[in-house]
Every structure is written in C-alpha cells, then in structure tokens.
C-alpha cells in the first residue's frame, strides 16, 4: 500500500502514500514519473516589477508529508491535498477529458520585516530536455528558451541565476525529449522557467514587503478588506507524445481561456413546457 491509484478511462495518476504527492502520470499512451510540489522563494528586495531572491537562501521545497483525501466519483476523481497551513490543492481528472487539473489555493502568505515569500509549483519529470523549454508569446507562437542563454546577447546570470531564467507564461510552458512532451497550461499570466532538465516551474502567488523602486511606490502586498489575499487558480498538465501534443494543447488552451459563460434562471412552468 505504498501508493494510491486514481484513474479515469484516459488518465492514471499514482500518488505516493509516503510523501502524499503525485508520483506518476499515465495518459495518451505515455507514462512518466512526475513529482509535483510547491516551493518558496524567500526574498527581500523583490517588488512588483522584479523577482530578486536572497542570494544566500536556497529555494525551500515543502518537505512535510502531504495529507490527502481521494474522492472517487464516476465523472470526476479528486485528490484533496494539504501541503501546509496556507497551501493546499485539488488534483482533478474528469472522465473523457485528456488533461490533469491542479487547483491551487495559496495564502495568506506569512511575511515578516525581513522576509517576503514568493510561491511556486514545480513539476519534476524524467524527460531529458537538455536545458530547452518553450513558453508562449501572448498565447500565440511558442518561443524556444535555452537555460542560461539569450538569443542576442550573453547574459550575466551570476547574481540572479533563477530570475534571470524566468519568462512570461501567458498560456503555456512545455518541454520535451525525442518521445515525450509535458506541458503546463495556466489560467492567468505567470512567470515560469525550467531550472533543471525535465522540470517546469510556475510562480503562483507573491507577497512582498518592499517597493523595488521602479515606479509603483508601494510594496506588492495586496489587501482586500485589510487582509492579505488568498489566491486560487488552476494549472493543467498535458503529457503526450511529441508528435501529438501541440494540437491537443491548442484545443485545451481554447477551452481553458474561453470557457462557457454560465447564466442561471428559475425554471418556470413556461420553461418546462419549452422542454
């Protein structure tokens, strides 16, 4: 009983019972180890415009065992996970839908006088991407990115090796080897990167303590009703063969970004007779 299997007719997810995290994804005839987790950048100088982590502090992965509950329905299967007191997630697969949904809930992010925090989700796979990944250009073409390199100049990434590799992700970020491709589709513009082969990272939520001096004149510390924000959103994962994946991602992207508009009415005798 070291693992829990959650599956529809199209997707099989394996949860590691020891860590409580996702371990393997099988879909579209492709199987891949995928360890998904959340991690925290502790920052001081970051502001609304710049992401600048403390140079002597590593990215902190959430190491505690994740408590989870599986709801096994016939239309939808859900894994409810609690990572810490302010990070939780639902992994969801629907019958007949070829993508895995990760609905994250983060906040209020704790901060103190010296430390702001920026929260990322990281998907670690065994795909040999050799430093190459792809991010979209405002939801249109995909642009090839190579870790630590730029197309037109030699970047100095010595002091900020991570934020120097961050790119805007408006609709998707992907990487691949000769056989498999893994893509993450998001529901809002975020920053993202691939710092290791096979790894995709998206920044989901940030709560900062300083203004970075580039114009806004305030720390990025959003409040509603005098309370720091709790943010909720979705990231979708598609694992596929290299040949098939792009067209599947295109269709999924349209459904995610242009969902049905939903309107509610009370059913009257008139509407029932219309039926």
């Amino acid at each position, binding site marked *: 009983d070291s693992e829990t299997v959650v599956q529809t007719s199209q997707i099989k997810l394996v949860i590691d019972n020891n860590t409580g995290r996702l371990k393997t994804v099988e879909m579209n005839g492709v199987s891949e180890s995928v360890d998904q987790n959340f991690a925290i950048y502790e920052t001081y100088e970051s502001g609304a415009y710049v992401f600048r982590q403390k140079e002597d502090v590593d990215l902190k992965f959430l190491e505690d065992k994740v408590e989870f509950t599986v709801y096994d329905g016939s239309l939808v299967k859900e894994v409810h996970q609690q990572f810490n007191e302010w990070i939780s997630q639902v992994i969801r697969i629907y019958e007949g839908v070829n993508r895995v949904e990760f609905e994250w809930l983060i906040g209020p992010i704790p901060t103190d006088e010296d430390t702001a925090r920026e929260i990322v989700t990281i998907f670690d796979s065994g795909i040999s991407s050799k430093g190459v990944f792809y991010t979209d250009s405002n939801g249109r073409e995909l642009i090839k990115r190579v870790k630590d390199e730029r197309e037109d100049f030699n970047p100095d990434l010595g002091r900020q090796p991570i934020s120097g590799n961050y790119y805007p992700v408006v609709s998707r970020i992907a990487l691949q080897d000769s056989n498999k491709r893994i893509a993450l589709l998001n529901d809002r513009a975020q920053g993202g990167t691939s710092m290791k082969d096979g790894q995709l990272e998206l920044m989901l939520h940030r709560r900062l303590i300083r203004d970075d001096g580039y114009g806004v004149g305030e720390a990025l510390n959003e409040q509603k009703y005098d309370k720091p924000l709790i943010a909720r959103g979705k990231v979708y994962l598609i694992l596929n063969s290299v040949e098939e994946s792009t067209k599947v991602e295109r269709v999924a992207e349209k459904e995610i970004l242009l969902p049905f508009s939903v309107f509610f009415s009370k059913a009257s005798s*008139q509407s029932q007779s219309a039926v």
Partner: protein
Amino acid sequence: KEDLDYLRQIMGVMQHHDAITGTEKQAVSNDYDRLLYDGIIGGASNARDALRVLTNLPEGEFESCLQLNISECAFTKDSADNVVVTLFNPLAHTSSQYVRVPVKEESYQVTDEKGRVVASEVVPVAWQVLALEYRENNTQHELVFKASVDKIASYFIKKVETRENKEIVLPKPAKKSVKETEKNLEVPKRFKKVHSMKKVETHADD
C-alpha cells in the same frame, strides 16, 4: 448600446500597462475592480436581453455568478431546485465541458433541453476553501455535469428526494465487478474516502 459602450470604455482603461501587469497602487487596483465590476454588470444586462430572445426562456433571469471561481453562487446557495443553467459557448465549434454549480449536499437530476437525463454528481468543495474567512457563502458542495454546447444550451436542475432517484441519476461505473458495485452501495455517500486527512490546526491570525 449604453452598457456596452461603458464596458468598452472600461476595457480601454484596462489596457494601461499597470492594469495588465498588476503594477498599479492598491487604491488604483481597487478602483479598477470597481470599474470592471460595473462594466460586467452592464454587459450582463445586455446578455440577459439577448438570451431572452435567443432561448425558449423569455422570462429567464439569466443571472451571472461572478464568484463561481471560488465556488460561490447566490442564485443556487439556498436551493438549486428547478434551476435552469444556460451556457453560451464562445468557441467557433461545439464543445463539451464540465460545469460546476455550487449547491447544498442534496440529490439532483440534470436534464438537457430534450428532457434526457444527463449524468451528474455532487462533490465536496475542498475544506480549505470552506475555511476561508472571506467566504460569505456556506455552500459546501458542487454539482458537476458534462455539457455539450454548440452555441447556446440550457440544462435543467431538479432536486430529487429519494435515494432510489439519486441512484438513477448516477451513471453505472464501467468495468466494475458485481462485488465492487455492492460494496459501493453500502457506502451512504456517493464518494468514498480513501485516505483520511489529518486535521490541521489553524490560527486566527492566519
């Protein structure tokens, strides 16, 4: 056109680079929220007028629930009995997508416009969401069904009382042995808890 022109004006304001990237001051952000909300409410009024013409529901309220993304809907929170859900598909082709409607934990039957029963189930909202002190809504479940929409389609939600009826709504899980099916019937709720969740202490200050 008055409402639509107002929405257009506001969308013009929202093209400012600070609105796009979120680098506006907090007070400006709040004002953008106010403007956008006003614009959407006006646009919803246009949508309502249009849907009364385009559907068979001339008296329909066609209410929008702007907080469906946080599992809130004032229209269904007290009762989702005899509710019509009208869906507009903005894509240029027929699309099948799952719809989630915040409801109380009760049994429902969903039918399409031809009166055919559509498979549906009620799932619990993650308890972390329920714990949010910002939420004014106490709806703890969502009704999930798959809708297939060319341009516009309506689905009818009706509360059903008995467990027998509830079972009719459920599609039979495929590839399940008789033994497994019997085992499932013994479980009072539709969902089986597979792995228990430890209670996490929360602090008021958080």
